[in-house]
């Protein structure tokens, strides 16, 4: 994009401290997320955010994007674990924000403003992160349904049981078909929707919660329910979910990946809309994702060589966003705005929202040198 520099903080990769009394970690931005999770786990502590890229993404990137992940449904996203930051602004000034304590209301909450700002406001050089005690046990349940309708009703039903799973993933028929042969699991022929559910907590409560999750699945029409409580068994069930993204290109080579969120009670309606949209627009749409928090990865799979198909896909994306907002949702749960979604920013936040954001940007980066062309539409940038 118009030349420029890429600034990488990957060599600032030290965990400066893990305070086991105050449950706080201080890290540099280049620490790989999994490294922090592993170090915390060694001490019986838990850093929950778990984006799919956790093996190679860094805390700095997670903060810039406000990364989510599978367990956001119960534990929240990166934002919920950042207490304070050290940041270099676009002016070269160095600012410390937030606190290292549980509470703190001194002035504006700049920390939360910076988390998810996509590198447009400042460069994180240090972060103070919250840790929590490591859950004692977990159990994983994989259930298959005939269709998205039954599956998404079950999602709502599980919360109706007053259970908050630590992961609740949904995969639609196209997603299941991508991995049917390679996941190493027996998948029922008529499976049109799968839910992967994990519950965690104290040992004695996990079994009971898993039982109730299974009952809820059956109540909403599950055709098959499987369960594992040991590490290997759980890992085997998870392979179904993990194999999907890499297998998508079997459907079509180019992926337009949206990550809308709707209130989970509106999931049945949203999924029905997506099914109808795919046939109306003659597109291959694969839906899967973190249904427990209403976050669905809508993947429009296109050939990449057919311009007419590309136009239909662009129209479909706009329709998906309009529907999402009308259901009380948001057009991006964890991927952010970047370049591709910049034209849709105003659709969700309104002209005044955009204006306030731009004014804030001017405070932090008056010269507009930090990640130009991102979030806001700029002349000369192709937003695709």
């Amino acid at each position, binding site marked *: 994009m118009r030349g420029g520099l890429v600034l990488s903080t*990957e060599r600032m990769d030290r965990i400066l401290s893990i305070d086991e009394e105050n449950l706080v970690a201080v890290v540099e931005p280049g620490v790989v997320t999994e490294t922090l999770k592993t170090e915390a786990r060694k001490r019986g502590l838990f850093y929950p955010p778990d984006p799919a*890229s956790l093996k*190679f993404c860094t805390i700095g990137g997670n903060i810039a994007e406000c990364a989510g992940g599978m367990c956001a449904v119960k534990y929240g996203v990166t934002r919920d674990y950042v207490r304070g930051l050290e940041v270099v602004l676009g002016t070269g000034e160095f600012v410390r924000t937030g606190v290292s304590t549980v509470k703190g209301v001194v002035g504006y909450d700049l920390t939360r403003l910076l988390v998810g700002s996509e590198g447009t406001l400042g460069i994180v050089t240090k972060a103070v992160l919250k840790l929590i005690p490591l859950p004692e046990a977990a159990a994983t349940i994989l259930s298959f349904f005939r269709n998205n309708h039954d599956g998404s009703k079950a999602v709502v039903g599980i919360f109706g049981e007053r259970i908050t799973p630590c992961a609740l993933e949904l995969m639609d028929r196209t997603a299941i078909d991508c991995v049917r042969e390679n996941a190493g699991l027996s998948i029922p022929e008529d499976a049109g929707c799968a839910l992967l559910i994990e519950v965690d907590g104290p040992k004695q409560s996990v079994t009971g919660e898993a039982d109730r999750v299974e009952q809820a699945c059956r109540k909403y029409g599950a055709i098959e329910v499987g369960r594992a409580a040991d590490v290997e068994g759980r890992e085997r069930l998870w392979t179904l979910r993990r194999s999907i993204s890499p297998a998508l*290109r079997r459907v079509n*080579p180019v992926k337009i990946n949206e990550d809308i969120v709707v209130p989970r009670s509106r999931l049945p309606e949203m999924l029905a809309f997506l099914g109808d949209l795919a046939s109306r627009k003659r597109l291959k749409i694969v839906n899967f994702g973190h249904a427990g928090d209403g976050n669905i990865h809508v993947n429009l799979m296109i050939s990449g060589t057919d311009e007419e198909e590309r136009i239909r896909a662009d129209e479909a994306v706009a329709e998906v966003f309009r529907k999402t907002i009308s259901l009380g949702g948001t057009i991006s749960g964890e991927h952010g705005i970047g370049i591709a979604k910049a034209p849709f920013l105003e659709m969700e936040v309104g002209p005044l929202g955009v204006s306030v954001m731009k004014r804030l940007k001017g405070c932090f980066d008056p010269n507009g040198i930090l990640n130009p062309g991102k979030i806001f539409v700029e002349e000369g940038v192709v937003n695709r």
Partner: protein
Amino acid sequence: MKGEDFTTLTAACAKCGMCRTVCTLYPERKAEISVARGKVTLVEAAYSGRDGNAEALQEALSDCLLCGKCERECPNEVAVEEIIMKGRADLAEKLGIPAWKQVVFGKVMPSAGVKDAARTAAAASQKLFLRKMPTESGLHYRFPSAFGLSGRTVPALPGKSFLGSLPPGEAVRGEVILFVGCVFDHVFPQVGRAAYETLRLSVKGISVFRDAPCCGLPALVSGDRPSALRCVEENVRRLSDASPERIVFPCGSCLVMFRRNMLFLLPSGHPLHGEAVRVADRCVDYASFLLETDVLSRLSDRPKGEWAGQVGYHDPCHLSGTLGKGPEGREVLRRTVGDSYSELRGAELCCGYGGTFNIRDYPTSAKIGQNKVSVAAGGGTAVIATACSGCILQMRDMAARTDPSLRVVHIAELVSQAFSSR
């Protein structure tokens, strides 16, 4: 190679970064350019005309061990090794072979205390070493004049190569062909001999591939496509005419050249492609073949006690990874040395040799290699057995530098020993 061929190869890369988690070089470099994702991005840029800095691209593509760990980890199965090898060849044609490969013969500083086969060679024997290497063999890629960097231990060149020691009438026909490979013929002829003798016990007759051209791998990874092509064409022609069905390889690097890389040079459409595929299908690693013949069942009285748990198997990146032959090597060891065998700590860690990489950046290669053998020794291993000439060259050098009591051998040497002491 044309731009569109590269586009097909690189299009599969989603730039996810999974390659970085397994890259042997990344922990040393901590730079995106050392990782497959970075290299693929540069190749894409170069071939789409966005960035034409050929020297920088050549430098980036040279900085790779070709261990292939990224390729095997890649969820989208991007053919990273093929991209890098073809890119190196393209750039060599454009810019010439990089300067670091054309070095003046240097003075060798002998280092003390180094024993066994990995002896430091004095300058005189180095000259002899280079002179004695057949010019057509791939060894001049493995040991260019740059090999004379100080501090390095190099194997002393034995008086006679393995094939040179065979009487003319011996091993001319048989059920199988033994493809010894340059290193196990000229540098470690005792390995060629051990593979030959143990195969002879397992089948009725064995023929060796005399005056064999190099497998072509050293030339290919150096970007010398014409030489690599000459090697594989001659190999394919001669082996197509040879009647024995199976072709047995004691060296995993030669084998991956035959089973996979050869087809990068002879792709479908090439007049020799069909023959190459048929030859590739006949090629098998030493361990798998030995297990097929069941000759090891004759070793019923396996030694006990003395070496308990101190013999381990190192996974050559391509033999165990790309070709999936890790279990076979271990099984041969288990059945040969009995309870002396145990799993090597860090068995899958790359030795850091990387062929031309070892010449290009010896300090980094040595750092990776020394870590490899230290981790193994730290796990209680006294003998590292493996089945690749590059790994053996590297690990003997590294053992000499870190722990001279550590032995590095080919599995065939242990099999041969077990039969002779029976």
